[in-house]
């Protein structure tokens, strides 16, 4: 087994046993990046020097038999919309092309304290707006499973980096599916945490009531390790909360997680909800087949499959595409060519604004800013924004009702397989429709896991496991059962 195939726990074990050093691990990933990043274009920037320096520091601690922190010597990649002091942070945009992060995002700070080795910054749709990573101002990322196809978005660089063995895990951010969709398209595991579970401080703001940071990794266990390292209240983000511990969760293992009898005991008490509105026209029948066969496997282990209804599904996407651009248009007002980033000269102040923003923002960002500006403008606010917020309430109520009957909801992450690069580029609306199964989760602030459960030809398909607020551990354990019981 090559070093770049190892999971976090395997790297940690190998470092403790001194099978290899942190510098060796770091170098093998850097080598892989050098060989293949040109083709995949997952990384926008590789921080080779900084990474090797940090790895050396960890090796020093290990050689002195000092206690090493949890993620010491384990390399990772960070989506380029999260600040890491001293490194550029572009958000995939020309407007921030030369911006250098002046401080660490809280997640970056936490991972540095845990000994993490940051290999670099990954590509994304500009300001995380997109579902394919084609909207990056610096060029598209390609899907490692088929480089003629998209990796999904917007955290496409992070998911592709994990799939291409450039790193064992990466940070993504999820506003309407941006962790889950690329995880599904690239055949890796992605966790979108409950809103408020992870601090957003230092994450470049997109739609603040929807954005969450989470891990993308090779296994459920690795997602758990990273999530536990970054969760919790942060005084720098007033929307972050103290993470409630569900110590007495009844499905939790008494001892050892991996035994098959434990898997069975988890599943026997489990009620899985299948939203009837999610398996209708628009879904690729091949995707549907893979998802249904995954559900069947849980049923065979003894889970009870219950049909649930989320009647506002159709409207959730429309509400999302009002709320998201509205918040985005407000958040992106800060890019004015005055304080930082690109600045174009003009005769008067208004010309500076018009030129800087006209030149600096790409097509999708401009589109969303304009939709948001329209929805919030005088005379339209009630018909669009306020109405969308009310529909959001109804979407949340749908989930609350469904969760009275079930422990978790299963559905596809995406209605389609990874599509060809360029296929949807000229039709923004068809791109939006890819998000149909993911956006409701952000509107409701719920946690959801994207788990690879099969392939259609060589293309991966992800199952989405949605949980109640702060029940990350439950959906992780449910996902782990699949991982440990069946090979895909």
């Amino acid at each position: 087994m090559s070093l770049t195939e190892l999971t976090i726990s395997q790297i940690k074990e190998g470092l403790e046993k001194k099978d290899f050093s942190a510098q060796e691990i770091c170098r093998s990933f850097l080598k892989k990046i050098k060989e293949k990043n040109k083709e995949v274009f997952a990384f926008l920037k590789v921080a080779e020097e900084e990474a090797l320096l940090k790895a050396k520091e960890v090796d020093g601690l290990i050689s002195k038999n000092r206690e090493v922190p949890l993620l010491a010597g384990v390399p990772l990649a960070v989506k380029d919309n999260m600040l890491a002091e001293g490194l550029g942070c572009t958000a995939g945009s020309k407007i921030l092309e030369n911006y250098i992060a002046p401080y660490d995002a809280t997640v970056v700070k936490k991972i540095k304290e845990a000994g993490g080795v940051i290999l670099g910054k990954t590509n994304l749709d500009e300001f995380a707006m997109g579902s394919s990573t084609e909207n990056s101002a610096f060029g598209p990322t390609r899907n490692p499973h088929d480089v003629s196809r998209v990796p999904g978005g917007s955290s496409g660089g992070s998911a592709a980096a994990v799939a291409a063995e450039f790193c064992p895990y990466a940070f993504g951010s999820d506003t309407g599916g941006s962790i889950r969709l690329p995880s599904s398209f690239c055949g890796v595991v992605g966790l979108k945490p409950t809103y408020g579970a992870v601090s957003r401080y230092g994450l470049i703001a997109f739609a603040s009531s929807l954005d969450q940071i989470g891990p993308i990794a090779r296994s459920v266990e690795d997602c758990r390790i990273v999530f536990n390292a970054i969760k919790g209240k942060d005084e720098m983000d007033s929307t972050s909360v103290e993470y409630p511990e569900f110590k007495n969760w009844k499905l939790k293992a008494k001892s050892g997680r991996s035994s098959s009898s434990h898997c069975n005991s988890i599943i026997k008490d489990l009620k899985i909800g299948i939203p009837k509105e999610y398996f209708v026209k628009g879904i690729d029948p091949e995707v549907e087949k893979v998802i249904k066969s995954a559900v069947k496997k849980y049923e065979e282990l003894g889970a009870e499959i219950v049909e649930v209804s989320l009647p506002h599904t159709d409207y959730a996407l429309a509400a999302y595409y009002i709320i998201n651009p509205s918040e985005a248009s407000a958040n992106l007002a800060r890019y004015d060519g005055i304080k930082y980033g690109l600045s174009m000269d003009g005769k008067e102040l208004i010309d500076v604004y018009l030129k800087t923003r006209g030149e600096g923002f790409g097509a999708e960002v401009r589109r969303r800013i304009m939709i948001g500006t329209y929805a919030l403008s005088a005379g339209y606010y009630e018909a669009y924004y306020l109405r969308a917020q009310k529909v959001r309430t109804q979407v949340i109520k749908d989930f609350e009702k469904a969760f009275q009957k079930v422990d978790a909801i299963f559905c596809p992450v995406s209605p389609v397989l990874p599509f060809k690069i360029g296929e949807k580029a000229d039709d923004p609306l068809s791109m939006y429709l890819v998000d149909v199964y993911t956006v409701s989760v952000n509107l409701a602030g719920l946690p959801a896991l994207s788990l690879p459960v099969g392939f259609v030809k060589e293309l991966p398909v992800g199952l989405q496991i949605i949980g109640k607020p702060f029940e990350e551990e439950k959906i992780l354990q449910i996902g782990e059962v699949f991982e440990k019981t069946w090979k895909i």
Partner: protein
Amino acid sequence: MLTKAEVQHIAKLARLGLSEKELEKYRKELSSILDYIEKLKEVDVSGTEPTSHPLKVENVTRKDGGKTEARSANSKILLEMAPDKKEGYVKVKQILNQ
């Protein structure tokens, strides 16, 4: 369908400089997105409260104390980023007419 004048108005509100050709492109694209969003009118929202935030937290406060040390160190770096500055201030073009 939006008119060209409407798109021009929105672009100006959003402070986006667009060319003639772009105005036409966005007129079509924004119209098709807004047509899709019209769906929301089918929902009965009478008696429903709006949600602006998925967590039920409010009024998160902190002590009204300073972090002056960290701040003054940071403010230098932050000021460095401004394209135009003078004597420790960010310089902006004249806003009001003389």
